[in-house]
């Protein structure tokens, strides 16, 4: 990976401690525009903490995260004002939670959920907002006729797809995903993964994907970080790491996947 493009996101020496337990220790990497990076590791290895650090939802104890607001114009998240960070988070970024209920407004219709970001950036035309919501519903394979239904009437897989639509409606450049397929049954997972892969390719999205499922990482990501006890123990191209794991822990992880 020695392409001369400028990175979209750059983490340098990120550390986060809970008491004297390190959740993340000295993590550095760069994310290129349009690249999908998977962060894998067992429960408690610091994946979610790292995701929160990267997305500015958590402040690191040391280290920094830089984001390219425009090509070549890197800004340290910590030096941004809260207003700038929040604007970034609801326009240029997306955040897909494992539990769709965290990422959706459950008492607001599907159209309202998708339209919230549009209204947040000043869209004031009901017809256009609703139309955009319907377009997005069909893009995530939900019947557009259900635009006025609340997510409480949707299945788990539909909620997850609605959450993705809600995040992508502003054409973000970077999406953080925290176990997007967790808690879904296998066939629903497969369809969701197909859909995410298509959208990522279509929109040129950069994705930081946290998962404990190596199959998900292999299917979606180009590059992978393997975490254990708050540290990155191995990183590289996904296929290389999964086919030829170097670190003993990665070898264990890869060999412990059940073959169907």
């Amino acid at each position, binding site marked *: 990976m020695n392409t001369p493009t400028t990175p979209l996101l750059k983490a340098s020496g990120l550390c986060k401690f809970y008491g004297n337990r390190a959740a993340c220790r000295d993590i550095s990497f760069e994310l290129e525009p349009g690249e999908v990076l998977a962060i894998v590791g067992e429960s408690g290895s610091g994946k979610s903490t790292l995701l929160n650090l990267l997305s500015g939802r958590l402040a690191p104890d040391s280290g920094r995260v830089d984001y390219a607001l425009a090509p070549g114009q890197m800004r340290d998240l910590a030096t941004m004002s*809260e*207003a700038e960070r*929040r604007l970034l988070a609801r326009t240029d970024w997306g955040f897909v939670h494992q539990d769709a209920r965290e990422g959706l*407004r459950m008492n*607001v*219709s599907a*159209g*309202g959920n998708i*339209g*919230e*970001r549009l*209204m*947040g*950036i000043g869209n*004031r*035309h*009901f*017809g256009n*907002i*609703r139309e955009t919501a319907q377009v997005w519903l069909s893009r995530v394979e939900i019947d557009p006729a259900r*635009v*006025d239904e609340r997510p409480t009437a949707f299945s788990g897989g539909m909620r997850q797809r609605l959450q993705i639509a809600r995040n992508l409606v502003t054409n973000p450049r970077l999406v953080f995903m925290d176990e997007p397929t967790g808690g879904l049954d296998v066939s629903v997972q497969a369809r969701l993964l197909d859909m995410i892969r298509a959208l990522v390719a279509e929109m040129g999205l950069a994705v930081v994907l946290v998962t404990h499922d190596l199959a998900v990482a292999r299917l979606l990501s180009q590059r992978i970080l393997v975490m254990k006890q708050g540290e990155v123990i191995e990183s590289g191209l996904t296929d290389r790491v999964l086919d030829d794991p170097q670190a003993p822990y990665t070898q264990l992880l890869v060999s412990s996947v059940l073959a169907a």
Partner: protein
Amino acid sequence: MSAYNFAYLDEQTKRMIRRAILKAIAVPGYQVPFASREMPMPYGWGTGGVQVTASILGPDDVLKVIDQGADDTTNAVSIRAFFAKTAGVKTTTATTEATVIQTRHRFPETNLGAHQVLVYQVPIPEPLRFLEPRETETRTLHALAEYGLMHVKLYEDIARHGHIATTYAYPVSVNGRYVMDPSPIPKYDNPRLDDCEALQLFGAGREKRIYAIPPHTKVVSLDFEDHPFEPTKFEHPCALCGSTMSYLDEVVTDDAGGRMFVCSDTDYCETRQREGHIGHLNAAAPQTCPEAAE
């Protein structure tokens, strides 16, 4: 009378409330926290409005109190009597004579002047409350002027009912900055808040917030380009005074579906009747004889 300080509250409390009021006037639409006191009436009866009124009342003021436009309901009568007793101020039911008007859920039909102050009783001051339950988050949203959520509420209205179905407590943007709940006045009254000559103060006792609209402030009701704000329209004139320019209450008159629509502002309605405007159900109206009509 001597058992009370003037207007019930002690002077230090009034100073504290006046400071909150001054800040509220300086930042139109911003909810200023204040140390709301226990008042000798239950929450929901206008403890916020009463504290604001007590703090701005002077011995020469003339006080009017209305409840849903009426001067003669329990809430209005009690609060008027309260200040007549504890402050000894002159009270009135005539909008034009009053210098301070405390109101629950209405803006008087008569235009207010620069010498008048309108004090609203507010149950829930936070317009974002039902969408965002966290107070810390709503404060951030106000601070950063992130009001997309308010339009989500209006969006839901249209998605569900085909039009903006919010008819009272209709959110407004004040001075192009803060989004404000105008208290549960009917949306019919919203246009009256804009560029009003009188000072408008809002007091929420239980929620401990004071906010204000200074005179001649721009107040805009939120809406969509393709679903613009529309004040309520009535199909009937007032049954007592015949007015077509006022907000009407529906009054059920019997158990056979009989009903009449009358002005909610009693002072306005009675003044018009005294001036000779007679509605079609007014007892003073000329009775049409069915035989003669044929």
